[in-house]
């Protein structure tokens, strides 16, 4: 269970999506976990590309700290993407496999691979973190996450001790499991 601020994590704003409210999504995803032992957590956008950002970031953090988690910040979201379920996924963009039976990912280009999503109650000073990978590497997380960016691979800033500052509240979390992130189609 995540009870203290981790050294690194994947930040993601979450909410209602594709006509489902967030509670329904959580229930459906955890049912998928019970059936298949993993969750495909769909997402889109240009940040957190599965191959160039999430996978290498996760490999490094797992090597350093033994695990990496996704922290979910719930927001009032009404994202209405095309309701098209993915039929295939790929870990490398080359070899494509069928989405396992029992898993449904809707309206997403990419997916994080998670273990069970659990409720939590964690307040984290985002100003202690910076972007951990990609062209914005080193940029303060509090500056990076904003109007156009709703997810990020974050790690603690070197020498960041101050735990004060504006806190972000996370109500749910899940560990990433191999292969950490995939492409969908």
């Amino acid at each position, binding site marked *: 269970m995540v009870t203290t601020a981790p050294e690194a994590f994947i930040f993601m704003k979450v909410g209602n999506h594709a006509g489902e409210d967030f509670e329904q999504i959580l229930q459906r995803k955890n049912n998928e976990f019970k059936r298949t032992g993993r969750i495909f957590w769909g997402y889109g*956008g*240009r*940040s957190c*590309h599965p*191959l*160039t950002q999430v*996978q*290498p970031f996760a*490999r*490094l953090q797992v*090597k350093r700290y033994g695990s990496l988690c996704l922290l979910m910040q719930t927001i009032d979201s009404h994202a209405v993407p095309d309701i098209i379920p993915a039929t295939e996924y790929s870990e*490398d*963009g*080359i070899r494509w496999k069928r989405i396992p039976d029992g898993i449904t990912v809707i309206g997403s280009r990419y997916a994080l691979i998670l273990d069970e999503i659990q409720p939590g109650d964690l307040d984290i000073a985002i100003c202690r973190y910076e972007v951990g*990978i*990609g*062209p*914005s*590497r*080193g*940029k303060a997380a509090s500056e*990076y996450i904003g109007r*156009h*960016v709703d997810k990020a691979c974050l790690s603690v800033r070197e020498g960041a001790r101050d735990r004060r500052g504006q806190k972000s509240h996370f109500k749910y979390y899940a560990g990433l499991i191999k292969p950490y992130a995939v*492409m969908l189609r």
Partner: protein
Amino acid sequence: MASHIDLRECLNAISDVVNNRPSPLREFDQIYMKTADMLLQTEHVGRQFDGRKVVFIGDGDAIALYLVHLHNSGLLERAPKAVHVLDFDERVVLSIKKFAQQFGISGRVVAELYNVADPLPRRHWQKFSGFYTNPPFGASNGGKSVEAFLKRGIEAVGKEAVGCLVIADHKTLPWTTDVLVSTENMVLKNGFVIREMLPEFHHYHLDDTPELTSCSMVIRRVQWERKPYASTAMGARARRNFYGEASPLWARYVRDLTYGGRRPSRDHKIEPWKGVGK
């Protein structure tokens, strides 16, 4: 000194090339430069490469085509005599060939499939008088990907050659300074000097980092000796960490399933009106 350009005519000519390019693939750091910056870059490198035979080590932006197309259309005073693009993306290679044929510039434009992890083909060793590269910026690998592309550019050029590197340069992103330092060191170690530097000169279509800029670094060879062919493949370790630690160069080529637009695209389908048959 900058050349005089006709903005409307130039932008329309640039638009010809933009319209011809394949979609960028973010997984390979193909991120296109913004159009106005491409025009300024084209004018800038046209002066640097005037009358030279220039090899492009990767060219998703299609700067090689802008140079020859604008010059051939009488819109750019100075440009290379010929350009030769080496790129691992067959969509890029075929789109360049198609454009060159369509606009009657095939005699000055060559494009071929090549991955920088492979040795430079023997026929290109020290054969060009200029090189251009806009490589993956190396945010997470300390500039190793920049060095890989720069190395091939250096191998491909001869005496008194001129090179142009487009690499990340932004004052609030410290990694860009680290990469600039390592690149400048490599430039100097290989007998080149920096002749011109346009800092924070270009912007990109990059959603999560729209403020990221790059510089145009022009270098000139001051020490040279003819050497026998000695290009080697990139080592296994460098390939394993090409995009950053634990982030390997996993793809050798990107293949074009439309064969340069001759076969139908597979990214759409047509839904007909019900009851209307052809």
